[in-house]
């Protein structure tokens, strides 16, 4: 092992090349990925009780895709996530520009309040949304997609502060001389924003939309409290399936969603490279 890994002598700071460090990181990655891999593999298992391999099948994918409520839940979730992402992106970018660009009274308080939804526990936000929508008597029996409006509003509320955070971090590295250069060359306030600031924000907007999309798609608790009796989303559906009757369909549906996540991540990576994406996150 050591001979295999250490082709050149290890420099003092190359901690990653020590054996125990490699074992540690390797174990952590196994811990993180083994459950997901097992789940994905067993979604192809030809058995009702999904613990022993009984041969390859795709019938649970067929079943999952023919399960109308499951498909409806998935479509609902994707719709909500898509809408929440677009609105969060606009609201989040606006907020970031406001906090980065302007001085105003009570700025500290505004700043703190806007990032509160990140800190407040999901359960409390869910409770707040439940009480709020009950109090305003928000209609629950609207036609699709208006029946998703309450959930979407709740999702936007907790997603856009995350977008703000990411965009703001990116804005901090903006060279204000670029904006001045644009104005110096004749650009108006709006033209300078469109031609210089917006392109600079782009990687953060991509990272922010990926973040908002996954946060929305991920959310169970807030949706659980906000959803009307007839509206189901994917996490809520999976929850009830896991809770009451574990079937291999859940594996199949989960695998589809994991694949979707990986594809989305790959697209985001393609747009702007690993470094930008991960850096703007950290």
């Amino acid at each position, binding site marked *: 092992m050591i001979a295999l890994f250490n082709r050149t002598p290890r420099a003092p700071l190359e901690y990653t090349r020590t054996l125990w460090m490699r074992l540690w990181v390797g174990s952590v990655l196994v811990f993180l990925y083994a459950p997901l891999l097992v789940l994905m593999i067993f979604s192809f298992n030809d058995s009702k009780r999904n613990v022993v391999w009984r041969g390859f099948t795709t019938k649970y994918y067929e079943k999952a895709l023919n399960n109308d409520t499951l498909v409806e839940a998935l479509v609902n979730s994707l719709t909500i996530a898509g809408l929440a992402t677009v609105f969060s992106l606009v609201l989040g970018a606006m907020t970031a520009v406001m906090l980065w660009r302007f001085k105003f009274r009570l700025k500290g308080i505004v700043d703190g309040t806007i990032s509160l939804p990140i800190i407040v526990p999901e359960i409390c936000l869910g409770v707040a949304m439940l009480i709020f929508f009950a109090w305003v008597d928000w209609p629950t029996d609207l036609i699709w997609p208006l029946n998703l409006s309450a959930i979407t509003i709740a999702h936007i509320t907790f997603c856009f502060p995350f977008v703000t955070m990411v965009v703001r971090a990116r804005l901090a590295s903006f060279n204000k001389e*670029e904006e001045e250069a644009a*104005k*110096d*060359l*004749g650009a108006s306030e709006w033209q300078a924003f469109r*031609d210089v600031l917006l392109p600079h924000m*782009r990687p953060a907007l991509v990272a922010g939309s990926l973040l908002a999309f996954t946060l929305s798609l991920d959310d169970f608790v807030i949706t659980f409290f906000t959803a009307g009796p007839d509206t189901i989303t994917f996490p809520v559906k999976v929850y009830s399936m896991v809770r009451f009757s574990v079937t291999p369909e859940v594996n199949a549906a989960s695998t589809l969603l994991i694949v979707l996540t990986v594809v989305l991540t790959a697209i985001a990576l393609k747009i702007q490279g690993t470094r930008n994406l991960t850096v703007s996150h950290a």
Partner: protein
Amino acid sequence: MTAQKSPIIEIRNVSKRFGKVTAVDNVSLDILAGEFFVLLGPSGCGKTTLLRMIAGFEMPTEGQILIDGQDMAHVPPNRRPVNMVFQSYAVFPHMSVADNVAYGLKIAGVGRSEREERVREALELVKLGGFEDRMPDQMSGGQRQRVALARSLVMRPKVLLLDEPLSALDAKLRAQMQFELADLQDQVGITFVTVTHDQDEALSMACRIAVMNKGDVAQLATPSDLYEYPANRFVADFVGSVNLFEGKLTLDEPDKAAVDCPGVGKIYLNHGVTGPHGADVWVALRPEKIYLHVPGAGKAVQAAGQDAPEGHNFARGRITGMSYLGDITLFDITLDDGATIRVSRPNLSRHDQEDFEWNDRVSMHWRADSPVVLLS
């Protein structure tokens, strides 16, 4: 360089305060059409603020700025007939070189064919022909600066403002760009206003230099006047290196003057200084204007005064520091009277530096018109 007499920028009693800090303090100066004007000073002296007020990014707290006779008080930066090359160059990283240069023309609504022609011309001018499709991150700092130059020049501004244009370049490139910028200015005939903290840069490029200190113009003069006739201690010290001796003006007649400096002795000048008799003054003496000998060498005369030619000041001392710089050698010499004086000596032959050793006794002399008497 054909300097016309009419001013293109008139700065009248301009002050700029940020809160309690006064960045620019009641400055008035004219910048003439077609000249290469340099604002020189240490960091924080207000030179960049002054430049940004001309560009329109800062508004004067008091006073007035006129460009080509027009008051700029209510003209935003995007409407001013000036363009700026920023310290960081501010080349748009997401646009190609051609798009960067074409940006201002596009905003101004210049047609496509004319735009392309002018972009090509501007890039030729800064020797970047053929780089149209490059992205800024594929270029060196020097090339990015040329893009920034082309981007501003293509707008054909009345005045081009340059904020520390060479500070980010390495020493060799900086020396080359100093020449190129001066050439370029000559070629396009546009007024250049440059801000720098580097005196070499200022001396080599400028028609006229305004030295700024603490928000104020300390002296406005041509490069050689600034160096040879500094108006005060700040300028003498900031531009080039200098020996400064405090003393009393003991003799002041139309054709001669003398200053008694403790630690040095009497320093004679062959012209009057018109300062009050007995006043505290300072004598500035450039290190390269002092001749240095091993005492008695060549003439074999013992009396110190006779080492020196007729009419020169003279002094003797001991070498207490030497620093060989290749083209010249710097000597620190402690005079018999106690003061320390810095002398620089060109190494005219390969063996020059071998004539002197630490602790050698030496004698010096300098012409009576070399020292400058400063009243402040």
